[in-house]
């Protein structure tokens, strides 16, 4: 199982999913319209490291974070 957390303004509690790759996380998150609308604009971190490859494999206990559009300063 992996945990998916939604940062900043997404305002959703973390969910736990069965997934062995980011692609599989993507497939499941796309089912929820409240989350799906954020996906085109979200960066993704696995265990706090930003990743760029949707084929990134996941292992038991990994934490996936969704980072929506930012505006510091």
């Amino acid at each position: 199982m992996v945990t998916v957390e939604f940062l900043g303004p997404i305002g959703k509690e973390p969910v736990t999913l069965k997934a062995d790759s980011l692609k599989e996380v993507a497939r499941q998150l796309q089912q929820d319209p409240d989350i799906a609308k954020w996906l085109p604009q979200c960066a993704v971190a696995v265990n706090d490291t930003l990743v760029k490859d949707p084929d990134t494999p996941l292992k038991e206990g990994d934490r996936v974070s969704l980072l929506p559009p930012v505006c510091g300063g």
Partner: protein
Amino acid sequence: MLLIYDGPVEVPSLLAQWYDAERERNYGAMVTFVGTIRDEGGIEALSFDIYRPVLERWFEGWQKKLAEQNALLAMAHSRGDVPVHQSSFACAIFSPKRRVALEMLDAFVEDFKANAPIWKYDVIDGRRLYAADRSTPMEGSGLLSAKE
């Protein structure tokens, strides 16, 4: 050095602290950027969320990049509410060379705006509203939106 303040950044004491800490280390040039909340759009304050683990990695990347040029970086940012006319962001770069200092300040502040994991909210009538129109998707966004 990365400092997170709960509420406004105390700019005068922070700049003094950074300046005094590095004054004897032969840097020659110090440049700073300070962001102060503007009174516009009827806001009382801006409010910020920070995701610290990713912010720290991003910041360490910049520290390393600057260290390769013998330059030093310090930054502070607010979490939570910052009233109008108070400051939410300050950074300083120290370098032996003024060109490095000036160019890196520009590059750092622009990358900060585009890629630091910080979310901004307008505070109006006590309500916290995500500043979606002023926000930028981070580099590499959209990774999870592709269909098989």
